[in-house]
């Protein structure tokens, strides 16, 4: 197999696609990352202001929205 030339056009074939593990993981990490980062920032705000979780909730939702937006921009067509 080493003697064989590497495929010159790896993505241009109409055969089976490679398992895009990388993309799947990126998408998942954007979603989780969005929730954790902004949820975490919201939690810190809660802690500082003295509220009981309203900012963490808002942050998580905003973060998810950001994550979805990122997936669309980075991984979408």
């Amino acid at each position, binding site marked *: *197999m*080493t*003697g*064989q030339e*590497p*495929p*010159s056009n*790896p993505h241009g074939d109409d055969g089976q696609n*490679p*398992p895009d*593990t*990388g*993309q799947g*993981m*990126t998408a998942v*990490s*954007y979603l*989780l*990352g*969005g929730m*954790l*980062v*902004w949820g975490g*920032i919201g939690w810190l705000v809660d802690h500082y202001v003295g509220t009981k979780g309203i900012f963490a909730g808002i942050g998580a939702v*905003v*973060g998810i929205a*950001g*994550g979805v*937006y*990122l997936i669309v*921009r*980075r991984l979408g067509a």
Partner: protein
Amino acid sequence: MIGQSTVLAAEFPPSVEDFYLPSILPWGAHDSYWFTKITLLVWVAVALIIIFFLVSYRKPQLVPTKKQWLAESLYGFVRNNIAVEMIGARGVAFAPYLTTLFCFILLNNLFSIVPLIQISPNSHIAFPAILAVISYVMFIYVGIRHHGGFFKYMKAALIPPAPWFILPLLIPIEFFSNFMVRPFSLAVRLFANMFAGHMLLLVFTLGGFAMVSANVWFTPFSIVSWIMTIALTFLEFLVIVLQAYVFTVLTASYVQGALADEH
């Protein structure tokens, strides 16, 4: 046999302690983990890989021998199906590292189902963590070199194509998912799979002994439990190969991300 089974059964249910094997050097010392079976296995893996590839490539034949064929298949598989497939033509430059990574993880994982060895160094978080750190440092270095400077790379990696007013929302997410989740998830995925696999086999093996020593009438259940161990060993083989592949593919995909230009 009875003595052995009571000793084993005494340890049921298995715990994290079962991953800390007795010290080899100094022999039998308590709470000394500098040289245990785990350490030995890592060095054996390193030696086996080096010797295997040296021997198979010492006198390369045009019509390959069996060993040469195996070595070439391994390298060819990683180069064509992982490096070039994920990174593109530039991937050939990363094929040696990816092949080494793949072989090392595969062999270390394989120790968890080889009879009488049956524990993988990768079931200790330290080894996957170091491998993840190597891949992490490498893809950042590659990114910096490709983009010509730390800040240029950060700009490419952190600033998505989006209107300026959402950027403050997106940049922390990008930073978190690109530079904090990646090494963590690489390490934890491999570690957790190997840890859980070893735990699973321990539960079914030791559970069989525990049932036998609890009541002789439980023997049939013990036998079912041991048959399950064998079945799960085959499942483990699947996990082993898959995790070695996933680690390598993800490393390649991170390198690809670092080499990507603006889209």
